[in-house]
């Protein structure tokens, strides 16, 4: 058996930097490592001393691709801390905004980052010539997500309309109607995208590992925004205020990066986790897409995360349409966000496209931040990626080195890691 030395310095087509290292000699696996050399950015330290009004502006910059998610988590946490509640209209429009980001991020991931793997290409560029219709569909759906973020968030990335207490600016009824129309058209496009992915689904490696999945859960809705923390391992849910007892951030012996574990050595978050916890609550439009793939609740092949993402695109589009209908029925009511500083501490949790996210802040009486703790989805997944590697590599160690490399890269990409979220990652040098 050959000696294997796969070293992928900076996995491409992911957000942020990650490195894979595998060494084996004579079939004996000596080392399998997933690590993150991203420069740490220290957000939790940087926000101290800043006003509750400016927190969202800062922490939105944790991640460009889930800036809406970070913004909403932060705003929810700030509102929790200073004791502000929001109207039904604000709640609905925030969710529609949040969904727009799920659309944009999922489409970007499936269309631009994963599709090239399935079609045997190095990037989306050659697909323009070989699969123009696929690229057209992907672009149209990507635009749809962006349009929603621009309409309700004021910008495509790093929203500006979300303030403690409500919206700095509301969309007009005419704009909402137009967006709803776009969403309805988008629903058709999801069907096309799903068919393409179905036709390529056999390219997804068949690799299963029994895993604990963690996501938000609430009554009646396949939730991204409200709810408590649920696990596939236990029946009862946990209040988001106790997120530290779920994430259990620890320093692994093998790496000094902070990893997370709850009931087992590691757990997974993201589309597949949400699916495994909430699939029963999917709207019919999304259930139909799931049926195309035969995706079962309880699936534990991490490569299927991309499939779950396609199902979720259908879900959030369908739910957006219903939410907009609700807002339009009542009519858009002008309201000015009202919030005042107060001493307190608060937590906000929402589902980022790539999994559950937690923000905690404390403020003094003037509304100045005194401490922060942010626990991001990719951080929660790192331990699980490592565990997947440890299980996967022995099964594929006989394959050519290039194939091993590709399968491992594809696995990392399946988790859609947004490593730039590194609020607190460690950079570890191995030799």
């Amino acid at each position, binding site marked *: 058996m050959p000696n294997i030395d796969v070293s992928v310095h900076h996995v491409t087509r992911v957000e942020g930097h990650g490195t894979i290292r595998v060494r084996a000699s004579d079939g004996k696996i000596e080392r399998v490592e997933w690590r993150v050399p991203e420069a740490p950015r220290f957000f939790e330290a940087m926000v101290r001393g800043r006003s509750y009004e400016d927190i969202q502006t800062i922490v939105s910059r944790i991640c460009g691709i889930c800036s809406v998610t970070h913004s909403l988590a932060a705003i929810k946490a700030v509102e929790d801390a200073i004791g502000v509640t929001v109207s039904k209209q604000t709640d609905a429009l925030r969710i529609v905004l949040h969904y727009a980001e799920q659309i944009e991020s999922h489409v970007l991931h499936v269309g631009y980052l994963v599709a090239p793997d399935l079609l045997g290409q190095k990037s989306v560029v050659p697909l323009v010539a070989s699969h123009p219709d696929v690229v057209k569909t992907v672009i149209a759906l990507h635009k749809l997500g962006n349009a929603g973020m621009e309409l309700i968030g004021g910008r495509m990335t790093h929203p500006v*309309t979300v303030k403690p207490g409500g919206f700095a600016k509301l969309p007009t009824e005419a704009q909402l109607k137009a967006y709803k129309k776009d969403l309805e058209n988008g629903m058709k496009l999801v069907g096309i995208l799903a068919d393409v992915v179905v036709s390529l689904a056999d390219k997804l490696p068949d690799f299963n590992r029994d895993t604990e999945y963690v996501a938000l859960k609430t009554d009646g809705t396949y939730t991204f925004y409200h709810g408590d923390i649920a696990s596939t391992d236990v029946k009862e849910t946990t209040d988001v205020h106790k997120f530290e007892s779920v994430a259990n951030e620890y320093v692994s012996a093998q790496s000094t990066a902070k990893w997370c574990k709850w009931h087992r050595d590691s757990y997974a978050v993201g589309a597949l986790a949400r699916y495994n916890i909430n699939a029963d609550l999917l709207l019919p439009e999304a259930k139909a897409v799931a049926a195309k793939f035969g995706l079962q609740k309880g699936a534990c092949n991490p490569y299927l995360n991309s499939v779950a993402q396609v199902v979720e695109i259908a879900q959030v589009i369908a739910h957006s349409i219903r939410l907009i209908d609700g807002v339009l029925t009542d009519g858009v009511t002008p309201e000015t966000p009202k919030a005042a500083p107060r001493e307190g501490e608060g937590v906000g949790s929402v589902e980022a496209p790539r999994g559950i996210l937690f923000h905690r802040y404390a403020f003094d009486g003037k509304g100045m931040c005194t401490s922060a703790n942010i626990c991001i989805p990719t951080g929660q997944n790192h331990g699980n990626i490592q565990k997947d590697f440890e299980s996967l590599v022995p099964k594929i160690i006989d394959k050519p080195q290039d194939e091993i490399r590709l399968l491992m890269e594809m696995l990392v990409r399946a988790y859609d890691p947004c490593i730039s979220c590194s609020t607190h990652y460690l950079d570890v040098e191995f030799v």
Partner: protein
Amino acid sequence: MDRPRVAIFDFACCEGCQLQLYNLEEGLLDVLGLIEPVEWREAISDQSDSYDIAVIEGSITRKEDEERLKDIRKRAKVMIALGACATIGGVNKLKNQFDFGEVRRTVYGKDAEAPHLDTARVKAVHEVVPVEVKIHGCPIDHFEFGTILKSVLAGKTPSIPNYPVCVECKKKGNICRYEYNEVCLGPITRAGCGAKCPTGGFWCFGCRGLLDNPNVDAAKEVMDIYGKTVDDLSGRLLLFNNQS
């Protein structure tokens, strides 16, 4: 003209600026027709060592990154700083007002002393190597990116505004945030974004950096009129324009 070889590199940032390239939508395909991307980790698997244009996203926050950047500079004919992290240090510079050891302890607790956690004063790209073109904003505006790229390719100096955001805000016909006693940095911040934030009902927080010649003294003096303090102004200025 041959298609210039372009490499895109990211340092400490949220990668939201690269995301704006995807937000060009069909325009991205046009861009790819005009340039030859030889390294772009977020989109393609290739890596390369020779290129005409290097695009740098992110701030420089570690010694090793400074070295990497200098190496890239040596290989590139033209260097473009992409986005606030690269052009002015951006939100990352908030760190510079703290003691770095204390920052590490705050975030990493007992592991704070690990050598790989070394962190240095955050620098914008031009504080380390010369930069030919700065594309401002957090994130960059994809239209402006297109305009600047087309200018560079057509051989004309990209026109980057040296007038304040208020100009674009007025063109949009917005109601000024000061009407609601909010501290807006528009009057001293470089335009080019189309006044997105005031148009969205929010104050300008200065992500495109200050003008060449901003009247900061005036900004301080007017705080009184709006029942605000110089601290309110300085606090907001710190977000993207920490001068330390």
